[in-house]
C-alpha cells in the first residue's frame, strides 16, 4: 500500500478545450498533498485524471505521463477499471448507494464486482473499514439501516470507509468537506491525519486553513483568465507555501488579495 504518484507534463483536454496545461508534480507516499486554487483552475480535473475518472466525461483526454510507483497509468494496455481499484476516490457530495444498507455500502467495492466472500470475512472488512473511517462506534448497532439514514458527515465517512475497504494504494479526495458542517469537517480532518499513516492522500480543498491543517505538501493552481487553461503555479512543503511562498500569485491568493 501507499505508492507514489508522479505527474509529468500533464495536459488535460475536454474535446478541443485545453483545461489544464503543463502540470508536473510528485505526490509523496504516506503524506497528504493538498491542491488549492480558485474555482475553475483545474484542481478537480487534475485529481480526476489521477485515477482516470475524468474519462467518464465524453471527449475528455490527456497528454503527458502519470505514473504510480513507475507504472504508467495511461499505458496502452492499462485497464482504467484496474487503475480505479488501486486509486480510490471520495467525492464532494457524499454518495452512498441508496438501495444498500450501511453494511452493504462498505463492501460495495467487492459486491458490485461479484467477488464472493464468506460472511465472516465481509463482517471483518466492514468493521475494520468503519473503524478506519472513525464511524464504527456510531453505526455498529444499525449496520442494516440504509446508508442514506446517516447524517451528511457520517455519510461522507461511510464513503471513505467504502473507499478504503478495497485497500487502495492512493486515496483521492475531491473537496470532501465542502458540504459538511465544521464538526463533521473536523472529524474528517482527524481521519485524514490517521489515514496518511497507511495511504497516499491527495485532497482538493477551497478551504486554505484546511489545507494548512491537514497537508504536508501544497500545490497552488491558477488560471490567467476565463477560457485560459489552469496551471500549476508552485508546489512546496505546506509550511513554506503558507509562510513564505515563492510566487507573488500564491501569496496574493492565500492572503486573500486575489484578483
Amino acid at each position, binding site marked *: 500500500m501507499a505508492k507514489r504518484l508522479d505527474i509529468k507534463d500533464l495536459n488535460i483536454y475536454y474535446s478541443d478545450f485545453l483545461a489544464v496545461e503543463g502540470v508536473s508534480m510528485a505526490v509523496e507516499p504516506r503524506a497528504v498533498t493538498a491542491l488549492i486554487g480558485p474555482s475553475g483552475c483545474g484542481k478537480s480535473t487534475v485529481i480526476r485524471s489521477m*485515477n482516470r*475518472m475524468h474519462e*467518464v466525461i*465524453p471527449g475528455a483526454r490527456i497528454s503527458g505521463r502519470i505514473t504510480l510507483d513507475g507504472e504508467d497509468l495511461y499505458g496502452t494496455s492499462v485497464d482504467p*477499471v*484496474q*487503475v*480505479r*481499484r*488501486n486509486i*480510490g*476516490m471520495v*467525492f464532494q*457530495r457524499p*454518495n*452512498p*448507494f*441508496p*438501495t444498500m444498507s450501511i453494511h452493504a455500502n462498505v463492501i*460495495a*467495492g467487492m*459486491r*458490485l*464486482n*461479484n467477488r464472493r466472500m464468506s460472511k465472516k470475512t465481509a463482517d471483518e472488512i466492514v468493521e475494520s473499514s468503519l473503524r478506519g473511517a472513525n464511524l464504527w462506534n456510531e453505526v455498529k448497532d444499525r449496520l442494516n*439501516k*440504509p446508508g*442514506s*439514514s446517516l447524517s451528511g458527515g457520517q455519510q461522507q465517512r461511510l*464513503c471513505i470507509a*467504502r*473507499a478504503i475497504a*478495497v485497500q487502495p494504494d492512493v486515496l483521492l479526495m475531491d473537496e470532501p468537506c465542502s458540504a459538511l458542517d465544521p464538526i463533521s469537517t473536523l472529524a474528517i480532518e482527524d481521519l485524514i491525519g490517521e489515514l496518511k499513516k497507511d495511504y497516499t492522500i491527495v485532497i482538493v480543498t477551497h478551504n486554505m486553513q484546511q489545507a494548512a491543517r491537514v497537508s504536508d505538501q501544497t500545490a497552488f493552481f491558477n488560471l490567467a483568465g476565463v477560457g485560459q487553461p489552469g496551471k500549476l503555479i508552485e508546489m512546496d512543503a505546506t509550511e513554506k507555501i503558507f509562510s513564505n511562498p515563492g510566487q507573488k500569485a500564491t501569496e496574493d491568493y492565500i492572503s486573500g488579495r486575489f484578483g
Partner: protein
Amino acid sequence: MTTLRDPLHAQLAGKKLTHGKLPRFTPIGLLVLSVAIVSGLLALFDVFSVPLAVVLGVVLFAVAIMALSGAVEGSRSARDRLATTVMYSAFGLAVVPLVSLLWTVLRYGLDRFNGYFLTYTMRGVFGGMDAGGVYHAIVGTLEITLFATVISVPIGLLTAIYLVEYGPTRLGRGITFFVDVMTGIPSIVAGLFAYALFALFLGPGVRMGVVGSVALAVLMIPVVVRASEEMLKLVPNELREAAYALGVPKWLTIVKVVLRTSVAGLVTGVMLAIARVIGETAPLLITVGVIDSANFNLFDGRMMTLPVFVFRQYSQGLAPNGITTINYDRAWAAALTLIIIVMLLNLIARLISRLFAPKTGR
C-alpha cells in the same frame, strides 16, 4: 440606505402585515348557496337539470368568492381564491368521466360477473342461452399480453440503457426520433404489420396468438423505451461515479447500481406500457381472430381476447330468443373483467415498486 428607498420600496414599506380573513367554512358554504340559488332559478323557469345547475353554480361561486375575498382579504387573496376554484373545477372535470365510466361498467357488468362467467367459455353457446363466459378470452389476453411484454421489455430496456448510458451519439438521436415516430403508429397499422410479417413466412390467412403479441410489442416498445429512459436519467450521476471510483466496470455499474436504483420506476413504466396495450382491439382482431373455445397455444390457431370478446358480443346485438340482451350483458361483464385485470396488475406493480424503492429514513 436611504437612497434605496425609491417609490416602490416606500410603498412596500407602508403595507400592513395583516389583513382580514374569511372564516374557514366560507368557500364550501358559498358553493352550496350558489348551487342552491342557481337550482332555484332554473326550477323557476322550469329548465332544471343537475349538470346545468352544478356548472352555473360553480361559475356563480367563482364570481361570488372573488368579490367577497376581494372586499375582505385584498386582491392577492381574491386571485388565489379564483385560481383555487379553477384548479378544483379542472380536477372535477377530469374525474367526472372516469367515475362515470367505472360506474357504468359496474352497473351493467356486475349482473353477469360471477365465478361461472370467469370459468366457462362460449363453446356451444348460441342465441339467447343463459350461459357462456370469458375464460377463453382471459387466457388469450393474459398469454398474448405476457408474450408481448416478454418481447418488448428486453428490447425497450436495452434501447433505453443505450440512449442514457452510451450517450447522445448520432445513432442515439436517430433512435430517439424513430421511437417518437413509433409512439404515434396507429394500432391497426401495427396489426397489419405483424400480419404481413407472418404472412410472408406462413402464407396468407395466418392467425395465431404470437402474431398478436408481435403487434402489441410494436406498440409497447416505444412506451417502454420512453418510460425507462426517463427513469434511468433520474439516477444521479454521482452514484455511477461512486461505482466507477470503486473499480466497478461500466456494465456492472449499469446492472447493479443504475438498474437496481431505478427498478421501482422501471416496473411502473412497464406496467403503464402493459396497460396501454392490454385493451387493444383492432390489431388483435386482424392477427389473432376470434374463437369460442379456450386455446392455450400461442403458436397454433386463433385465440380470443377480452377486448375482441367485448367487440364481438356487442356487435352481435339482440338475441332472437331467450335472454335477448345477453350479448350486451356479456360485453359489459367482459369489460369489467378487463378493468379488474388492469387494476390488479397495477396493484402488483405498486407492491413491487415499494419493495425495491431506495430506502430512506432512520
